């Protein structure tokens, strides 16, 4: 199994596959191809979005390519806000050229002239680096007019800054935010591929997705599919944090088991692992044999490890506080539901929750999954429901700390 790791601020301890990428090889190859062939390659590679939802990238690009509009947009989602996720920060700091190369390939494939990197406000310190790289690429004729001498290809990228709102990572909220609105998710359809930024067809992809796209065009769809499982092709970058010896950024093929990951990062005593961020799955030891892949345990790349002494109720509480705070408040199940679940956790903490009420809270969680408008509300009950499912013995009949002290 291939495993690569990076650590420290942004200094890599071991190289990622992205280190082997020949500069601009993917872009050069794609400009020798027709846009349609690029789309074909992307579809063949079976690359799925690395931002969490896992939508096939080739299909997304094809939809935007088919849309009839003079103006199209390529947006790089660098709003990385999912608790436990930081791989995009490392990619932006260390592999930005590859990311922008991927965006440029996307632009060629769908016929876009404008690109935007939407950078979260918390990463403002990366902005000057982004601007500098974009400027150098313009000077090198890798952005701007007639890229690489192709008279029929103009594309440029600008940076837009977020301002501290997790929900803006949701693609339609991101568009609202880019348009100067409150970052409230829209109803879909229409999807951004048909009606995105300023009403124009827009592809929105995760930072990592663009980097892989550049690698795929250079090395071929076959190469990518050699890694991973049948339904989850390729390699994936993971952000590993929590109770382990070696936190940091790792690369694993999809399909890797939780056990394998824990061994690599040095967490033999783990009691539970949170995969896919706060909205993802919390797995107990009995589930460590499961695979991290779209068909089993999907992820945007976050792995948070909980050691044997962690209080899982406290963990669930931390997540729910996050969601209650970050809910945009637009729809009731999410706005009120997260607060109710949080209150429920506080009742459990005090040892005041009846089994009957706990069941009602779980039913509320199910309602939120079904009735919320966007992914935030649809997934925010997960940590609560998972904790009830797998760690019930820790929740029920607790003694209030202040009583025993």
């Amino acid at each position, binding site marked *: 199994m291939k495993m690569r790791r990076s*650590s420290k*601020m942004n200094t890599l301890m071991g190289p990622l596959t992205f280190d082997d990428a020949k500069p601009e090889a993917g872009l050069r190859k794609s400009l020798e191809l027709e846009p349609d062939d690029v789309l074909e390659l992307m579809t063949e590679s079976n690359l799925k979005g690395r931002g969490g939802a896992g939508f096939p990238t080739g299909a997304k690009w094809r939809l935007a390519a088919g849309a009839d509009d003079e103006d199209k947009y390529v947006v790089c989602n660098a709003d*990385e*806000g*999912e*608790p*436990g*996720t*930081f791989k*995009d*920060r490392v990619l932006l700091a260390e592999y930005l050229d590859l990311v922008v190369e991927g965006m440029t390939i996307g632009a060629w494939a769908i016929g876009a002239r404008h690109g935007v990197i939407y950078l*979260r*406000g*918390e*990463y*403002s*310190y990366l902005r*000057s680096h982004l601007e500098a790289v974009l400027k150098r690429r313009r000077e090198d004729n890798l952005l701007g007019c007639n890229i690489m001498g192709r008279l029929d290809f103009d594309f440029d990228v600008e940076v*837009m*800054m*977020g*301002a*501290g*709102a*997790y929900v803006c990572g949701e693609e339609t909220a991101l568009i609202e*935010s*880019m*348009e*100067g*609105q*409150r*970052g*409230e998710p829209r109803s879909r359809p229409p999807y951004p591929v048909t009606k995105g930024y*300023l009403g124009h067809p827009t592809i929105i992809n995760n930072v990592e997705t663009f980097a892989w796209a550049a690698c795929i065009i250079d090395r071929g769809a076959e190469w990518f599919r050699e890694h991973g499982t049948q339904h989850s092709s390729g390699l994936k970058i993971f*952000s*590993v*944090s*929590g*109770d382990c010896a070696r*936190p*940091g*950024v790792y690369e694993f093929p999809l399909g890797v088991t939780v056990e394998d990951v824990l061994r690599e990062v040095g967490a033999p005593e783990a009691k539970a692992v*949170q995969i896919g961020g*706060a909205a993802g799955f919390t797995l107990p030891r009995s589930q460590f044999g499961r695979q991290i892949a779209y068909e089993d345990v999907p992820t945007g790349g*976050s792995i*948070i490890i*909980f050691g044997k002494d*962690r209080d899982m109720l406290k*963990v669930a509480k*931390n*997540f729910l*506080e*996050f969601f209650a*705070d*970050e809910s*945009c408040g637009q729809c009731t199940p999410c706005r009120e539901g997260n607060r109710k679940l949080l209150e429920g956790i506080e009742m459990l903490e005090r040892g005041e929750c009846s089994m009957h009420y706990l069941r009602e809270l779980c039913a509320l969680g199910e309602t939120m999954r079904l009735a919320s408008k966007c992914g935030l509300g649809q997934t925010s009950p997960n940590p609560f429901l998972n904790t009830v499912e797998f760690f019930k013995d820790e929740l029920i009949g607790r003694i209030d700390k202040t009583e025993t002290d």
Partner: protein
Amino acid sequence: MLRTEQDVLRQDIVALADRLGRGRESLLPILQEVQRKYCTISDYAMQIIADELRIHPVEVYGVVTFYSFLDFRPKGRFVIRLCRTISCDMKEKNRVARQLENDLGIKFGQTTPDGKFTLEWANCIGMCDQGPAMLINEQVFTNVTPEGVHEILEGCRRVFGVHALERGGARR
């Protein structure tokens, strides 16, 4: 001729609109600049921005109140945002929080009376492998220890009298 603070603010905003544009998509960039320079977005600023962009001030207010990095209440020159999300939480961010409160003499959500520091919580700032982590304006601090807090604050205080604003955004 006497130039009031309001005149200066107005001229600044007009200049920003000239530079960044007057379309709706320029609203956030303009607000971010005003916040950076004035540490707040006052009612008056919102009104001027609305006039420049030809939208209702309530629209501006709606946006300002949505984003946690924008605020109509005055903030300190240095806004300290300590991450409270799970990985930093497990790395004992509470001890760092306590020491920040002790050394600044304020609670979370408050600003020091001299207007220098605001203390806030942040949700995950993407430094989970190096917690506890915090942002001070645009600068990031990782593996913060309770005893290290004092030196970090002193570093901020030394900046005063020089060019607090410019230096506040410098990279570490």
